[in-house]
């Protein structure tokens, strides 16, 4: 899956790419197991065709999109984003997709649609850990409308010039580069426009640890660890790799800072 170099501001970081091998074998995708080596082992069972994404809720044009129609909805772009996991590690990944805003504009949300909720696949037949009590399935995530409309918010179908590997959220996922990785829902089956802030999987599991916003922020620690620094996966020096300083909004402050003007980021973590 090829994409043209994106012209969106912030979409072309010059940092060294994480190796494909690391980006596709060190994953959090709990439907396939809680160990980071599990998804690559177990996600082979995921069936990505046929696949439909249902758009519903407060929109003028709700509908069902077959995955191949959804891919063709707008021109594919390549975007090189930093990915910061809430656990304190990070990667640099070339994603392929288009701004979620392209889809949102086409379905014409009503004025009272304030949030977008993403519902992901929870199929116990193909996902061995759905049914475990780790999370409340299906995994759901959400964004405020202005976050969802931001050009950096990507509806992604591929990475490294290929279609998404199953363990990375095939066939379609969200990538929100200024938020912790878990905000970027994988294998999406429903996009719902709602008026009230939707519940999200990790917030429901541990509200004091994972807030709705979950913007990358070095000054707001996770209750059990500091978020001031991060380990860049596979940056060459192996065991002795120096930790990097974590940047506010994962370094995308110039692009997204205004979304949170006046908000107490410690309160809305």
């Amino acid at each position, binding site marked *: 899956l090829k994409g043209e170099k994106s012209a969106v501001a912030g979409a072309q970081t010059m940092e060294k790419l994480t190796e494909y091998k*690391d980006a596709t074998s060190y994953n959090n995708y709990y439907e396939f197991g809680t160990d980071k080596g599990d998804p690559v082992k177990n996600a082979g069972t995921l069936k990505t065709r046929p696949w439909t994404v249902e758009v519903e809720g407060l929109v003028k044009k709700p509908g069902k999109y077959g995955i191949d129609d959804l891919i063709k909805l707008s021109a594919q772009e390549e975007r090189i984003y930093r990915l910061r996991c809430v656990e304190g590690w990070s990667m640099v990944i070339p994603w392929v997709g288009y701004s979620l805003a392209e889809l949102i504009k086409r379905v014409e949300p009503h004025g009272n649609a304030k949030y977008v909720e993403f519902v992901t696949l929870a199929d116990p037949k193909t996902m061995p850990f759905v049914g475990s009590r780790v*999370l409340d399935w299906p995994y759901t995530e959400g964004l405020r409308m202005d976050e969802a409309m931001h050009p950096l918010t990507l509806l992604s179908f591929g990475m490294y010039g290929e279609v998404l590997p199953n363990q990375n959220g095939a066939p379609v996922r969200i990538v929100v580069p200024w938020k912790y990785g878990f905000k970027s829902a994988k294998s999406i089956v429903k996009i719902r426009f709602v008026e009230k802030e939707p519940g999200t999987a990790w917030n429901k599991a*541990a509200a004091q640890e994972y807030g709705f916003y979950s913007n990358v922020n070095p000054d707001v620690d996770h209750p*059990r660890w500091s978020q001031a620094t991060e380990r860049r996966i596979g940056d060459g020096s192996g065991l002795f790799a120096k930790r990097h300083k974590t940047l506010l909004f994962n370094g995308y402050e110039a692009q997204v800072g205004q979304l949170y003007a006046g908000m107490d980021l410690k309160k809305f973590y």
Partner: protein
Amino acid sequence: MNKLLLHPAAKPLVFVLCLLPFAWLAYGAFTDGLGANPAEHLIRSTGDWTLRFICIVLAVTPLRVMTRTNALARFRRMLGLFAYFYVVVHLLSYSLFDMGFDIPAIAKDIAKRPFILVGFTAFVLLTPLAATSFNRAIKALGAKRWQTLHKLVYGIAGLGLLHFFWMRAGKNNFAEVFVYAAIVATLLGWRVWNSARNRKAPRAVPTGRVQLSK
């Protein structure tokens, strides 16, 4: 069995076996074989092995009594010291690879994060046990006091489990924690049951005796 355990090669063999996980990790570290996040792998694995050795050393006495293989007691000290060895490597890995040996930052981190504080406390409590594991220390303390001191290991096992539980709590992923907890509970439960039985029928089976082996 007793004869086999008393063989002169038995202790060196067990020593090498206990060192294998460390050797395997060290080999992985030097050959880039620890996966995408080698530091995390090293820290977690050495933590796992600490817990495993605590379980192993706690199993020595129940096994010895149940199977009447007194020679097992010869290995208890070495197994306990290996638990300490792995916790030292665990702490050093965290200090070096996570914190870059920044001592003030480490002190702050320990104070701030309850699960690290609990783990660190367990390490601190295990230190006097390791330090008094040689025969002269046992003689100097007197067997009774030595034994009382070394009963600390029951509490340390609990702290180690709590440390692990808390580490996994954020991910709601307790399956492995419960396995270790069940093992420790069984081993400690056996002690309670056994001492109650001994009180009823004294001298039935000797247990918990300090073994002064050379």
